[in-house]
């Protein structure tokens, strides 16, 4: 580990934040070990690293959510102990969490002033709140309608509200935890422009991310963490994507994954004319037909919220199919129970690993055996065979490099990427002929994504038919044989992965183009 900063204690004025020798352990896991971070005033500083590298822990320490075991924090050159978020706010530190903390039924203005309201007697002065919001919004170029209800706003706007909220509290140092995870490319561009603006106005921004392109496009400086330690800090001009990814994962990422041609196999999933309901009697999926065959990876690309998640739920038995037919492995499973569809040959990696993919309060063993638990060797008559379950879990942990404190710890103690590895490990272990993976690499780092992709392709080469829902075009091109684009509840285009471009897909994704008579039955290729 190299120690990048060796500034004497009082030269702090250059740095808005300096964290030195920060260490923090959770049980046996060292989340942060002797970490250094120095953020120059008026700059955008990216904190990059794999999941579980300790980025969030470090920022939680800076924001006072958790206390370090050792180390010192300097804010604007002054040594501070930050015991809770309120003290962080008082020091001018604000945080925009990955999961927004807004009140849905309140207006934008009410949310912005929440916790520091202008008062009129005992009540909140709503007019003044709106005024404050408008002023802040103009000052920083964050366009919002102060009177709109949060519930009616898209995520991009909600994020602006979070930023305004932090600014209203007088934050000069803004921490953003993976702010682009929920944004469209367009919204991301706007966000970055805003951040540039803020920095030009004297604010300091710390951006947690694991996306290389963001580092390259927006940061001034970068600090890389790996496995709880600082790998190094660099000016953006000194680094390139190649060097950064090497620092992050400790080795080089393969750009292309070899995919041998596969003979056309039997259909494992046939969807015809499926319609699925959405909120308030609307249709989320409006008549979709396609086929997935053995030995191919079909990807559904599209901007989030175009019916993909409803389609996935309908295919897996978690939401009723209103019209049409679904068959898995040649068996009609329309509106059957999740258990019956699994018996027909489905394995499913859901997009929300915490709500659905895992039971975070139970042990890794109990999570790994779910779905297998009625099969040999994991049961002996009425009883569970704990020894076999442990062996099985340990083998999954080994194969998928799940970093954890042993097979008996609660799944909730894992970091996001390791949770996802566990889910994928379990779903792969069924040996199912059809695998449905929804946003399989969302919120996980390069190393873990690479591993996931490698396993998906291995499964494809072994003859599994795979359907992936993805919003990440890098991923789409990396793994697909065929690509379907979903827009507004319909499949608007179908492509061979080697016969299309990002630009072409982009046009279909935003609804600017659609193929005539799009893909009846999915037999086109």
């Amino acid at each position, binding site marked *: 580990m190299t120690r990048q900063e060796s500034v004497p204690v009082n030269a702090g004025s250059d740095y808005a934040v300096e964290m030195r020798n920060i260490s923090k352990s*959770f*049980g*046996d*896991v*060292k989340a942060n070990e002797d970490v250094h971070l120095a953020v120059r005033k008026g700059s955008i500083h990216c904190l990059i690293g794999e999941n579980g590298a300790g980025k969030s822990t470090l920022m939680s320490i800076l924001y006072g959510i*958790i*206390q370090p075991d050792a180390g010192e924090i300097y804010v604007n050159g002054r040594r501070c102990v930050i*015991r809770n978020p309120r003290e962080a706010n008082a020091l001018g530190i604000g945080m925009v969490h990955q999961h927004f903390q807004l009140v849905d039924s309140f207006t934008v203005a009410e949310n912005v002033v929440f916790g520091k309201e202008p008062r009129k007697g005992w009540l909140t002065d709503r007019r003044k709140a709106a005024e404050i919001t408008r002023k802040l919004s103009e000052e920083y170029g964050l366009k919002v309608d102060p009177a709109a209800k949060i519930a009616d706003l898209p995520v991009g706007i909600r994020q602006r509200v979070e930023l305004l909220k932090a600014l209203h509290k007088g934050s000069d140092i803004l921490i953003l935890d993976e702010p682009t995870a929920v944004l469209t490319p367009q919204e991301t561009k706007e966000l970055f422009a805003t951040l540039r603006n803020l920095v030009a106005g004297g604010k300091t921004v710390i951006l947690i991310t694991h996306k290389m392109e963001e580092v390259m496009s927006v940061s001034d400086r970068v600090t890389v963490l790996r496995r709880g330690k600082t790998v190094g800090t660099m000016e953006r001009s000194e680094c390139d994507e190649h060097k950064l990814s090497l620092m992050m994962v400790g080795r080089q990422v393969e750009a292309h994954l070899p995919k041998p041609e596969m003979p056309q196999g039997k259909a494992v999933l046939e969807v015809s004319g499926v319609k699925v309901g959405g909120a308030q009697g609307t249709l989320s999926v409006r008549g979709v037909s396609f086929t997935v065959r053995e030995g191919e990876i079909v990807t559904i690309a599209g901007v989030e919220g175009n019916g993909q998640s409803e389609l996935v739920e309908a295919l*897996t038995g*978690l939401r009723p199919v209103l019209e049409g037919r679904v068959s898995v492995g040649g068996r009609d499973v329309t509106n059957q*129970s*999740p*258990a019956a569809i*699994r*018996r027909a040959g489905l394995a*499913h990696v*859901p997009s929300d690993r915490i*709500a*659905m*993919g*895992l*039971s*975070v*309060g*139970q042990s890794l063993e*109990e999570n790994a*055996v*779910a*779905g297998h*638990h*009625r099969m040999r060797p994991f*049961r002996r008559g*009425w*009883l*569970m065979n*704990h020894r076999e379950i442990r062996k099985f879990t340990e083998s999954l942990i080994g194969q998928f490099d799940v970093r*954890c*404190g*042993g097979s008996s710890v609660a799944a909730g103690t894992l970091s996001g990427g390791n949770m996802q590895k566990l889910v994928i490990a379990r779903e792969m272990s069924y040996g199912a002929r059809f695998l449905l993976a929804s946003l399989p690499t969302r919120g996980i780092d390069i190393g873990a994504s690479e591993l996931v992709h490698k396993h998906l392709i291995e499964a494809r080469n072994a003859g599994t038919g795979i359907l992936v829902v993805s919003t990440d075009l890098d991923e789409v091109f990396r793994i697909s044989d065929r690509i379907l684009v979903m827009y507004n509840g319909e499949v608007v285009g179908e492509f061979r992965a080697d016969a299309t471009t990002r630009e072409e897909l982009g046009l279909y994704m935003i609804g600017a183009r659609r193929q005539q008579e799009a893909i009846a039955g999915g037999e086109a290729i």
Partner: protein
Amino acid sequence: MTAPASAQPSAPVMRLLRRLYGLATSRESVSVLVSVLLTLVVGGVLVVINGDNPFVVYRSLFVHAFGSMQNLTNTLAAATPLIFTGLAVGISFRAGVWNIGAEGQLYLGAMGGAIVGVYLTNLWAPMHIALSLAVAMVCGGLWAWIMGFLKTKWNVDEVVTTMMGNYIAIHFTSYLANYPLKPPKAPIGSTDYVQESAQLPQFVPYSTLNAGFVIAIATAVVYWIFYRYTTTGYQMRTVGYNRLFARYAGMPSGRMILWAMFGSGALAGLAGCVEVLGVQYRFVQDMSPNYGFDGILVALLAMNSGPGIVLVAILFGALRSGGLGVERMTNVPSELSIVLTSVLILLVSSRYALVKLFRKERGTRA
């Protein structure tokens, strides 16, 4: 960094020791222990205010709960129905359903068991007892099952239905005991006495401790094995932790909830039946001093663990029987035990805050 090698011959023993150590030092256990100690302090202060020496009172409480064979058997007898109702409630809580209706299910079980005990004659005693217990379980179980059915079918909140079900069950059995089944000349609403062949044998003279206690312990063992080792227990537990996950993984979550409710009601019914066959020898209206509701407290304090429920039930039983002794020997009223119980529940419910207070600023996530 993690998991020492487990290949040594003593590995299972080491694992057991580590687990026990972990259990003893876990946040849960420490917090419960702190709560118990604080409860004693609070109770002590009240005793001092009342003008007594808390040490004398506590000593007397202890002696009257455990001091002699007689006292010990009284304590265990008082604990018996609470073990049943605690387990009953624990089953449903583990499966993520909130059966608040153990009280009513207890009455139905008591009535069902009493009817079998009174009106079937000429049976071999073990057979008679077993039949009586089985009918009691079916009565209590079916009643709870109905609430489970409403929940899985139409998503009707089981807290409300089981709560309301209590009144229906209690008043229905009370009607039976006051009208159709009431023997002539009986002073209060009750059934006739059960046949001798249906009575549970007693162990110690002058004590109500009977074979019901053994049945309670056996039930607790089954409960423990069920949730720890059986596949169905695992499915039920998983449904309790995360119903969506259970459904996604292909577990029959609806069926698990129905079974959990049935089992819960069945054990509550057993509590009532054992009270009839072993203590009262007949169904009597208002026979339960809130055993069903106390079962909720027992399960909560024990965090639904089988052995924990037995221990907490015995603690409650000790407070109850010891409290009576204290009243006889000092001028502290037996309500002291109610006060202690209530304070304990209050403290345990807020135990996380307590532990935080004690480990201030250390911020460890044990």
